[in-house]
Each structure stands twice: as C-alpha cells, then as structure tokens.
C-alpha cells in the first residue's frame, strides 16, 4: 500500500514555499509596515487546536520513527533529536488535554505514513525534518490572529517559538546555509491553514475526522528527493479559503 501511495511521479502544483520562502531584512520591513496577509478566522479555537494537534501528531510520529531508525549517531545531535521528539509529544499531550478541557473532542490520531526513503538515511531524515519544522512554524503563525482565548494564544505562541528553535537546530545539524536554511529571514512567514493541510495531507494515510476546509492551491513542501504523487497528489487538489489583509 505504501508503494502505491508513495510512487515517485512528480508532484502537481509545486510551489516555492518550502524551498524559497526566504525573507530578507528589507522585505521584513515591508512586511511589518505595509500590508500583510494573515489567515482569516478559520474556525473556533477548538478547530485551530485540532488543526495544531494533527500537525503535532505527524511531527511526533515522524521523530519517533526517525529516532528509532538510528540515523543520528553523534551524541549531541542524538540528544537534540530526543529533546525534539519529547517536545512534539508534549505538544500532542497539551493540545489533547486542552481540547478536552474546552469540551471539544480532540481529533483521533490519523494514520501517518512517510515515503519509504524518509528514514533511509540521515540526509533524507534531516531534509524532511527541516520541512516539517518550518511548516509548523508557519502554521502556528498563520493562526495567531484567529485565536480568541488569551491562554490558548499564549500557549500556541509558546509552541510556535519552540518549533522555530527546532527548525533552526535541525538547520545547524544539517549544515544548512545560515540565512535561508537555519534562519528564514528577519521575520517568520505565516502559512495559511489550507496550504498547510495540502502540504501535510500526503502524510495522512487515513483521513482523520477533522472537518478541515479544503485548500485552493496545492502546495508541495517536500524536498525534491521526497516528491510524491498519484493518489496522494489527488488528495492535495483542494481549495483554500479567502484571506483578509489588514492594514498596519
């Protein structure tokens, strides 16, 4: 079954979010002082938490499998990856508990699949790890303006910052270029919920009962070596919701 999903045909609608969303200093100034697109309110706080929970499930599972594969051998790097795994697991737990306290049913853990090549080498593991972390950073930031409960906002922001730490560390461990690899410019870039979902949908072997809005554009955050297609690509052909553009 994995093989049928994870064949290597090229991916439709590949965009540059994963590879090229580097914001330089001068751009950052524009971002802050002119118009910036923020995600429209995309549901209740419960919806946002369930969205985040789905992402955290994917991340936690990713590190559980990757770390178990023994691809990271340096003691210090191993320690960092163990910490990252624990962080993602803690995020899953925290989001689940919070949803329960809100009286909102947490989404069930989806069936999560990764391309066979993902855990074949240190390089492929690091490559996808950096994509997941940067996607997580953008995903949380994309929801910043939509969260209404202040406690949840505080906590979600707190998780967001930790995902940014993870992204930077994996960049360092990967030997990535400082600007553009470890750092993504002077400001982080939000990613709309629809785009995030489109990007992670290929990893969801079973569609969870999320009620997520479909996305308009298909977006590929996968590194080139991990391109996917076929049935997974079909899942990605969704529509995204509109965005509002508040003036600063």
């Amino acid at each position: 079954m994995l093989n049928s999903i994870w064949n290597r045909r090229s991916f439709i609608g590949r965009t540059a979010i994963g590879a090229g969303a580097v914001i330089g200093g001068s751009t950052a100034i524009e971002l802050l002082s002119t118009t910036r697109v923020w995600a429209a309110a995309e549901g209740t706080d419960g919806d946002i938490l369930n969205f985040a929970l789905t992402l955290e499930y994917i991340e936690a599972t990713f590190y559980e499998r990757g770390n178990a594969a023994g691809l990271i051998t340096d003691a210090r790097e191993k320690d960092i990856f163990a910490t990252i795994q624990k962080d993602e697991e803690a995020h899953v737990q925290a989001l689940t508990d919070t949803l329960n306290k809100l009286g909102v049913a947490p989404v069930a853990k989806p069936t999560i699949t990764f391309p066979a090549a993902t855990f074949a080498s240190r390089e492929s593991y690091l490559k996808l790890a950096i994509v997941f972390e940067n996607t997580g950073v953008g995903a949380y930031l994309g929801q910043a303006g939509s969260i209404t409960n202040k406690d949840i906002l505080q906590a979600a922001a707190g998780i967001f910052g930790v995902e940014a730490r993870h992204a930077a560390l994996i960049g360092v461990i990967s030997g990535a270029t400082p600007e553009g690899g470890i750092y993504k410019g002077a400001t982080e870039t939000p990613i709309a919920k629809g785009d995030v979902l489109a990007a992670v949908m290929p990893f969801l072997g079973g569609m969870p009962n999320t009620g997520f809005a479909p996305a308009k554009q298909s977006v590929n955050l996968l590194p080139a070596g991990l391109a996917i297609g076929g049935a997974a690509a079909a899942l990605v052909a969704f529509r995204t919701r509109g965005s509002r553009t508040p003036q600063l």
Partner: protein
Amino acid sequence: MNQDPFEGRPVIQFASEKDRRAFLKYAALVGVGGSLVSALPISNVFAAASPTPSPSGSPSPSGSPNPSGSGTSQFGAGDIGILNYALTLEYLESEFYQKGLAANILGDDAKYVTPVAAHEAAHVAALTATLNKLGATPATKPTFVFPPTTFTDKATFLKTAVIFEETGVKAYHGQVVLIKDAAILGAAASIAGVESRHAAVLNYLTQTPPVPNPVEQHATADETLAAIKPFLGA
C-alpha cells in the same frame, strides 16, 4: 566560559533545563491555574518578585492572564507602548551584535551571528517604520553600556548573546496576549519566532541546552526592563 558577563549581578534568572515529563503535569494549556506557564520555575521566581500589577496603575486588558504587562505604558499607551518597548530591546540587541561583529572575535561562528545582527537591525527599522506609520513617535535609542570583556572575549560575547536572546523571546511572549491589533500581533509574533531561532543557535554554540522548555516562557515588561537595566547607561 566561567566569566560572568554581568559581574555577579543577577540579570535574569532562567529556568534550568526542566524535566519534560514534568511538563505533562501541566500539559493542558488552559484550566490549570491560568496557564501552564505559571507552573514553571521562571514564573515562580518572577511571581514572587512582582506579585502586583505595575506601579503605573494602568489597568490590564480584560481577560489577560498577564496582569502585570502594563510596564510598557511608560513607552506609550496600548500597542504603541508595546512597539516602543520592543524597539528598545531591539536597539540593545542590534548595537550588541554590531559591536560584536566589528570586534572580529567570533572566528567561524561569525557565519551564524552575522545574519542575527542583520535581523536585529531589520527589527529596529521595521518597528520604527511601523510606529511612524501609526503616527507615533518611536522611542529614542538609549545609551548602552556593556561589561568590559563583552567584545574582547568570544565566550563572554556568546554567553551574553544567549541571555539577550532568551530575554527577547520571553519579552515578546509576554506581550503576545496584550497586543490588541491583529496585524501588530502577527508582526510581533513573526519577530518572536526569529528570536527563538537565534536563541537556539546561540545555545548550540555555547553548549547549553538549545530548547530549555517544550513551550516558550514569557516575562512581563517590568521583569524584562529590570533584567536589561544593567545595560542602560546614563
């Protein structure tokens, strides 16, 4: 690495690497006494130090779990005060990195620090531009003083950088729930994430735990300003 850049003065006390399993005790993001963060060591330290709202007496925004966030009122009302508070911190960071790079003490690690310096300068410019756009007066740059060996000893510089970055992260997170305008919130958060990246990299370079907690902690403006006071000159 044994040098103390603050000459024995307590600048800010950071939580030690905490047991992540303990986090699970406070795992729910709401409903455990206001927030999970209140259960963490750093907040306890601060809670003991400043149990009441700031002396300015300005009321905290309703619904805020961070009642002592009004320390920014000395910089202006509401979001303007928060932006000017952030600008003041960015001035400090920006000058610090500018001087550090100019001192040419970082060797190979300069490649990691050079972008950080550029980011902090961009933050200063962006916050200034935003304040101007809002019709507010940007805070003027204070005169900063740094301990003597800050720019002559690489280890001291990097250690100080870690402290500034961790302080900056906590400072932004302390304002997250107080910012009223959604666009300003988004912009501030987008800067905060970059400060987190800086903190992680600098911790890595100094062999300190790069992700001390599974969730970023936060500090009030009063706490942060007290922490940076040693660097404020006449």
